[in-house]
């Protein structure tokens, strides 16, 4: 049972053979194994080969997560690895990775956490930059709406620093 190999195939035909326990870290895979014949390859429609490779790398690293006995050192090393893993992709890959993690239902905690880190305590400009919104003219809020936001009760929410730097 433990050395069962599963084949995961991406939308563009790339195949990866992994151990069942690694594949099961993606919650979408479990029911697929149970319902389809376990010998058939599992095709993941919404994930490209490049992204699938990254996801599998994460799953392999975290396959022993459920073991409680991990030492403090081991936990820290894993955390550092996670950080590096999240930092390395460019914005486009990162967005695709996030969509994949949502579809596959795995590593979602980590991806959401890293976006959270780019929002927490950052100014609006910094967030726009990390989200890739700088050049999106049509996405910008019209001036009058901004003025409205300024005067509305929302002012009590917004950090004055955020508001003023944005309007300048």
């Amino acid at each position: 049972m433990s050395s069962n190999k599963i084949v995961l195939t991406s939308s563009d035909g790339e195949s990866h053979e992994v151990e069942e326990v690694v594949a099961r870290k993606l919650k979408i895979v479990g029911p697929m194994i149970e319902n389809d014949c376990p010998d058939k390859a599992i095709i993941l429609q919404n994930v490209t080969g490049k992204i699938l490779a990254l996801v599998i790398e994460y799953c392999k690293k975290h396959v022993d997560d459920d073991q409680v006995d991990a030492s403090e050192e081991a936990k820290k090393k894993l955390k550092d690895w996670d950080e590096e893993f999240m930092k390395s992709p460019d914005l486009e890959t990162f967005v695709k990775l996030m969509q994949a993690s949502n579809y596959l239902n795995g590593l979602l905690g980590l991806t959401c956490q890293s976006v959270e880190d780019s929002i927490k305590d950052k100014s609006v400009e910094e967030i726009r930059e990390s989200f890739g919104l700088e050049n999106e003219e049509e996405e910008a809020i019209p001036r009058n709406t901004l003025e409205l936001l300024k005067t509305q009760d929302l002012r009590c929410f917004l950090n004055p620093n955020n508001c003023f730097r944005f309007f300048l």
Partner: protein
Amino acid sequence: MSSICELSDDLLVKILSLVKTKDAVATSLLSKRWLSLWKLVPRLDYVTTPWHSSDPSSDFINNFLLLSEAPVLETMHLRLGYFCKREEHERWVEIAVARHVRVLELIHSTYPSTPMPCPSSLFTCRGLVVLSLQEVMIWEIPSTIFLQSLKTLSLLCVRFCSRRDDELVHTLLSACPVLETLVVRRWLEDCVTTFNIAVPSLQSLYIMHRPGGHVQTDDRECVINAPSLKALKVSDELSWFRLLVEMPKLVKAEIKIRQDDSKKLLRCLASAKHLSLCVTSAKQLLTEKSVENLCQLEYLELCTICSSDWLCLLLKHSPKLRVLRLNNQTSQRNCCGSSRKIRVKWEEPCCVPECLVTSLETVEWIGYEGTETEKEVAIYILEKANHLKKMTISRHITNLREKYRTLIDLVSRLSCCASKCRLEFVRL
């Protein structure tokens, strides 16, 4: 050009649920897409800045609740101070309950403490799973109370005002049929003499130490009747403490209390694998019989200031013991309140305790002072413990010479030849 905005609304809301509400609302400035996303976040948290001259908490919370479009408000964390008005507070809780809140935290912090009256709408919140109250006053509990989903309850410095003694605590706890975790912090003004904790479903109990520097002991009591308990931690040395029933599922117990009936106490704790004891009480009579059921013990921590008399007996009756920790700390905030000042009186046991022969692997001695008795104990263990891998001695020293003298004192008196054990010294 790719951006985070390509992600689905669901995913973005999931992310916004992780950040503080203030930051989530600020994202409305990012772009058109983000203008109203924050309104779908089912979570409100607000921490007041106590030094703020004009407290914006009312506006913030009122506006959030007004503008929020989330179908359900799952979590509400409010940390409030002086300026919180009773009527507003009550309204906020009512709104949260009406919007199916599952995790509710009402933390008040004022000096001098003026507890905020607890809205009674709280007690009929059926979907509530986690409730945390601090500096809140419970006047009355409606008879329709039924917290059927409550699993975690935290009562920190809560005042229970009732006409009949102590009934409110009982009413509250018996209305939680699936309660698993309870955290209690008593204080001088809780108006409860006997804090009765009778919860059959309880798995984890933590009774925190009293706030402030109170050293006055009193006649108040904590009585525990929780047969399903797995973890117990008590750090309240000012009230009396009583266990009523045995707890066969108990795995870990950390006890720092005043206690009358040590025999009953140990009998109830018999299933524990991990035990930490600091029991200051007038009578310390401990017989073989009261300790004989403690055979599951693998980790033992003992306060040598008050409970050292028990060392011999406990070693004898814990055949599976792997780790022994002797705590002689006098300089910490949570140090033992015992006034007995009895040091370890050591009599070599007539036959070597089984745990020394077969299982003891680690010994830690914190606050070692180098007295004759302590040396005798240390040497006895070093000589007799066949499987001992490491003994760590932590001591206050002012220079390195004292360190070496401590180690040499012990090593030179070891009669047998080099043991496989490592003797380590850590400076306190």
